[in-house]
């Protein structure tokens, strides 16, 4: 299973995928790249269908993005016209599709990276000479986001359970309620991060300038193979694209 790979190999693989996603700008190139990324996900113990189910709200937004791009991107080949005006152009549709495909590929890269446990992820960054404090902050920040989301959700539920029906309120009053919630939520997040910092220091975080790891990362044959194949294919695809061969 590729899940067991060293996080550094995953960085290289996802970095190459993300670079290609930004480099290519046509659905004919981005489509196969997305298929490749989707094919890789199960090898990293990620179920693409489960991810899609969880992100169904995002899918609606992405669908909206395609429509917006199709309408507003300036193009010369009309698909739907209204009098003299081009409503939807082929270029707009292609641009919108490319944007969405690109976002999906980058999302897949994130999922590949997230398949490593946070501790290994941090160690991987440290091995690449990123200061430990910074690496740990990145990993903590990633873990903090779902917590914040959950907390905001609970506050919103509590608000409604106290008899406040936002859907029935005029928008001005709604705005007032949301504005009132915003400051305490931010303050709570800051206070919580302070508590975490205190708890970390109490548990000897940065007690010594150098630190060791219980499990040490070691690049294996599979890791070298992944890094070499990723770099070679990435560079080759970019070269072929620049030469106009693909």
């Amino acid at each position: 299973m590729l899940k067991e790979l060293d996080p550094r190999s995953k960085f290289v693989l996802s970095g190459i995928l993300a670079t290609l996603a930004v480099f290519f700008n046509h659905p004919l190139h981005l489509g196969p790249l997305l298929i490749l990324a989707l094919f890789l996900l199960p090898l990293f113990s990620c179920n693409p269908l489960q991810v899609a189910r969880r992100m169904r709200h995002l899918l609606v937004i992405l669908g909206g993005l395609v429509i917006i791009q199709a309408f507003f991107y300036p193009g010369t080949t009309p698909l739907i016209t209204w009098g003299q005006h081009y409503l939807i152009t082929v270029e707009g549709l292609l641009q919108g599709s490319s944007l969405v495909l690109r976002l999906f590929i980058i999302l897949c890269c994130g999922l590949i990276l997230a398949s490593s446990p946070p501790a290994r992820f941090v160690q991987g960054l440290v091995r690449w000479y990123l200061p430990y404090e910074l690496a740990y902050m990145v990993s903590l920040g990633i873990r903090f986001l779902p917590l914040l989301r959950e907390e905001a959700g609970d506050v919103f539920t509590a608000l409604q359970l106290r008899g406040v029906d936002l859907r029935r309120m005029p928008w001005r009053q709604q705005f007032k309620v949301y504005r009132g919630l915003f400051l305490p939520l931010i303050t709570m997040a800051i206070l919580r991060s302070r508590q975490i910092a205190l708890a970390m220091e109490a548990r000897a975080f940065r007690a010594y300038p150098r630190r060791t790891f219980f499990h040490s990362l070691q690049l294996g044959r599979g890791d070298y193979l992944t890094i070499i194949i990723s770099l070679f294919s990435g560079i080759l695809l970019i070269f072929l694209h620049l030469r106009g061969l693909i």
Partner: protein
Amino acid sequence: MSLVAHSLSFRYEKTDPFCLENIGLELHPGQCLALLGANGSGKTTLSKLLIGILQPEKGHVSVDGQNLAGLSLAGIGEKIGYLFQNPSRQLFCSSAGEEIGFPLQFCGLDPGEIAERTEHLLHFFGLDHLRDQFPFTLSQGERQRLALAAIMVLDPPYFILDEPTTGLDPRRREELFYYLQKLIKNGRGIILISHDHCFARRLASGILELKEGRLQEVDPGC
């Protein structure tokens, strides 16, 4: 007139086994039911089903004959007061006083009455001196009392209290006991989730225990 759970079954993921199965209970006005169970037995999950935060896969909950599924959370909140297991999660205003009076602003009450009700609860829960404090800077026990005061201000007919004695000192616990007893005498129905067996047995007329996803009645005397 009652809060009824009709054969509730629930699981978090479709692929998981049911964590609660065929749960039925009935709470009448003026009655207190204690819900006991080990950590992770599903007490909080059941309370979230009863308040409509989670939806059961089978069965339904009704309050005074009305299915919860047809009510908004705000509508449910007017009938059932819910104390979260972690009170910090339900406090969102910038001061303790504002926290208590918050929902009254939307009920069309005049400021005088809002202030009067707020003051009464601040005084009752011993929070007078903390009126202007930011809720998050209060101690665990103070936050617990504030959350209790905040849900009691709307005076709903039923309450679900998830571990209300956590963080309370013995004197406050005793005061809470008498306050809840008074609420029961005034016809309020309470479901009390607690690990404090002594408190629960003193207050409740019926004791229920959640074990392996099923609810069983326990002899209140033992």
